[in-house]
Every structure is written in C-alpha cells, then in structure tokens.
C-alpha cells in the first residue's frame, strides 16, 4: 500500500467515531496491538526526547524501505506512535520525507502536535524523519537510493 493509500484508510477508519471516547479507545487499542518492542532497546539511544512519558523508536532498513519499531509507557502516546508507524513504517525514505503528518489534523488529533512538552508527538515525527534522512544517505551511498 502506498503512503497515500494508508493515509486514506486511516482517515476513513477514524471518521466512524463520533465522540472522542471511541476515538481514544481505538487509539489505545492501536497502541496495544503494536509489535513487542525488544526491551534491550529501551535505552537512551532510542529514546525520543521531549516526551512527558517515555517513548522509544528504532528503525531498520528492509531493502529500500524503513521499518520502525516503537514503544511507550503511556497508552495514548503509544497509540499515537502506532498511528505514525502505520503511515510511515515500511515506506521508502523519500516517501517518508515527502509526507507531512497533516493526517493528524484530518482525524482531529493535531492538538497533540503542539510544541508543549506533553507527549512529544512533534518530536516523534522529527525522529522518524531523521531516521529517514539517515537511511536515505545509506541507500544513496550503496547505489540503491
């Protein structure tokens, strides 16, 4: 699925919720459904700064695509990371870098993108993009980019 198709699917999925409770319930479930994050990587190296709760984000290259793993000790934040991963994980660095997180606004979760040091969603997006830049350079050097 392309990044755009995933985005459309996510927006469609969230449009069924009429009140915030159902939306948050869904978000919490998305967090709980994230693949287990290897506990050995719950270190400062993988920590996303700027979050009130702890968030870890790890990225690996699979072919020419970046695959992310993430975790958080807070459920809503973990749901927000899961949402980001659904959009960005498994995409090429170029697609990741070209795609802004404006879908959050369309599903009414953009208040979490504020610069306030509460949940660090903005910091997560930045870290995802930083990984993408890094792997883009790796791919270019190996002639696959």
């Amino acid at each position, binding site marked *: 699925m392309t990044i755009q198709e995933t985005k459309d699917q996510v927006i469609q999925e969230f449009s069924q919720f009429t009140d915030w409770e159902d939306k948050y319930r869904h978000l919490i479930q998305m967090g709980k459904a994230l693949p287990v994050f290897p506990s050995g990587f719950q270190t400062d190296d993988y920590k996303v700064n700027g979050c*009130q709760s702890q968030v870890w984000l790890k990225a690996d290259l699979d072919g020419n695509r970046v695959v992310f793993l993430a975790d958080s000790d807070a*459920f809503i934040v973990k749901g927000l990371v899961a949402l980001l991963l659904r959009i960005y994980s498994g995409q090429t660095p170029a697609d990741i870098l070209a795609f802004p997180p404006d879908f959050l606004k369309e599903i009414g979760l953009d208040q979490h993108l504020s610069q306030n040091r*509460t949940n660090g969603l903005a910091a997560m997006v930045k870290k995802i993009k930083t990984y993408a830049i890094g792997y883009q350079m790796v791919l270019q050097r190996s002639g696959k980019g």
Partner: protein
Amino acid sequence: MNTGLAPAVFSVDQIRKDFPLLAGEINGKPLVYLDNAATAQKPESVIRRMDRYYRQENANVHRGIHTLSQNATTAYESTRSQVREFLNAREEEELIFTSGTTEGINLVAATFARQMLKPGDEILISAMEHHSNIVPWQMALEEKGGRLRVIPMNDRGELILEGLDQLLTGKTRLVAVSHMSNTLGTINPVKEIIRQAHDRGIPVLVDAAQSVPHLPVDVQELDCDFLVFSGHKVFGPTGIGILYGKKELLDSLPPYHGGGDMIKTVTFEKTTYNDLPFRLEAGTPNIAAGIGLGEAIAYLNRLDRAAALKHEQELLAEATEKMTEIPGLRLIGTAAHKGSVISFVMASAHPADIGMILDQEGIAVRTGHHCTQPVMKQFNIPATARASFAFYNTTEEVDRLVRALRKINDLFG
C-alpha cells in the same frame, strides 16, 4: 456589573464571578481548573488594574519628575507597602521585587551564599524541594567546594526531623526549605526548623511559593531570615515576585545585578550603590505586574481568608476520600498536615494518559515530575498527576474529577 470585589461573606458562587476565565469552556465542557499550584487565575480587579495602568498611567518609575512618572512610582511602591503588611514585615526595605520565586532564590544564592560559602561548607535543604530550591544552591556550592545536605522524608511525604540536630552542623551556612510542597501538598513545620537552626546561629530561607496562596504567612512570627514567593500563584500577574529578607541580612548583601536604579553615583573609576531595596533591583522593573500584585493582595485582603482556607481543606478532604475509593488509584503524599494539593498515580494509566483524558473532559491538571525529580525517585514513580485546588473550586468540580477518573479506569482497564 461585576467589580471583581470579593463579597464580605464567603460564597464560592459569588467568588467565581470575580474570575472571568473560570466561566470558560475547554473541549466543549465547562472548564474545571485544578492546576492552581502551577498558576492561579486572576480576578477581574487585577486584570482591570493592569489594563488601566497601560491605558492611563504608563511611565517609568523612580527619578521621573513628571506627574505620570510620580504617579506610576506611587502605585508601584504602594505594592511594597501592601506586601509589608501582607507578610507582616517590619519595614518596606525588607521587600525586594523579583521576577518570581526562582529569581528570589537565585538572588540569595548569588549574593548571600556565594559571599559566605567556603570549601567544605554545607547548605541544608529538604527531600521535597522544587528544583528551583535545589539547583541555585548546587551551583553556588559547586563553585565554592561545598556540599548540599538533605532533610529526609518518610513515605507519607513528611519531613523526618528527629535527626535534624545532626544535619545542622558547624559547617551549615543556610537552611532552605519549602513551607508547602508543590508535589505532595505537605505543609512543613518551618517554624520548628527555623527555631532549631537559629539555636545554632544558622539563617533560614523559606520557599513560600505554595503556602502564601493558602495560609497566612507572618515573617516575624516565623522569624525566617529570607522568604520568597511569586505573584502569579497568589492570583496576581506573572513576572513579579517578592524576596523578603531581614534588614540586617539584606544590608550585608553585595549587589546582585548591576545597572540603573541600583546605584548612588557612577564614575568610570568607582560606583557607589543605592540603599535598600533599590540596591538589589537593577533596571526598569515589571511595573504593571508590580501594580497588579498589589491589586491581587487587595483582593485577598477583602476575602475571608480563614473561610477560604476552610473551604479548600474541605475540598481536599472530599477529593481525598472519593479518590481513595477509586480502584488502582494511589495517592502520593498523605501527610497529616496538607494543603489543597493531591498527587496521584493510577494502575490503569500513565499520568500523561490521565492528563490527556481529563483535558478531553475539560479538567486541567498537571502531570509530570512537577520539577521535583528527587521526590519521584523516592516514591519510585516517573511522574504523577496532580490536582490542586484554590478557594474558587467547588465540590461539583471534585465530583467531575472523580467521575472522569473512574472513566479512565473504564477506558484503559
């Protein structure tokens, strides 16, 4: 028309009308503002007073010969006189305007502590201090080769004073302790700590940022040597605070910031310094905030403060009782003597989750370490959620908080 004047009889419904922001909505729900320990809302009278200052009275204070400047000086300086009365200080010269509690502590650390600390000296604080009552001392001690000592606390969040006499040593140069904990709500027996410190000739600074909004604070009765608080937590504006210091101590301090207002004469060879309080107040002050603080104190003086405190204690008791019944909820800070602050954690959700859900419900609380990381470490938790009450909060708001917390168990459980 609402004048922002508190009524003679304590009525929460009437008082709420004095605070325009409290009538607002957040996320489509009537706001429940329970973040008063971070900053308090402002009464109409304070907002109007500052508005009037900028519209009709704005001029720089001190040394102005024109009428506007003299009026601005009178208004600004009258706050000093109100604060003197509010804290029962002996003289107006004992009150220094700062930008807030943090600057007050930094001023004492930069002048008093640095002047007197020698290698091996100690400053004694408590285990529940805010970072702003830890870091300035650490900076001074690091520079001078001294060390910080800490009065421990028990798992209810009460200071353990049995060993205080061993902590007050011949090397202790200052005790700096909070009157009321911003995280735990504990009201500390500062008078007793001051008495014991004074028995050994050690001066004491009281961080009264959390206590002044709730409790009567009398610096002569406490006999503290320094006391600091912030305007914005006592229903006044941000950017203004007070450092109280006994006159003989303030007189002995070297200047803090150099600049205008703090000098007598300046030549390129030698500057002589102004008298107190101006010697410690360099530069154009936050005049509007200073005037606003005076209006906030006037508001508190019109209030039946004993009734306000009683009301806050009733809210605290009711919230404590109802929150204790919520499965998986654990209170952090259960001291026998507490102000209206409740920190808690829940088994079902992280404090960040709690804060986000409460926000959806229109309820403002603070979550995180509350600038007290050592307290978090002692309780072995990363963070807490904290509800803090002011006299304008209601029992209905306590009920909304409790209902929302039960909903959290349902959402995350």
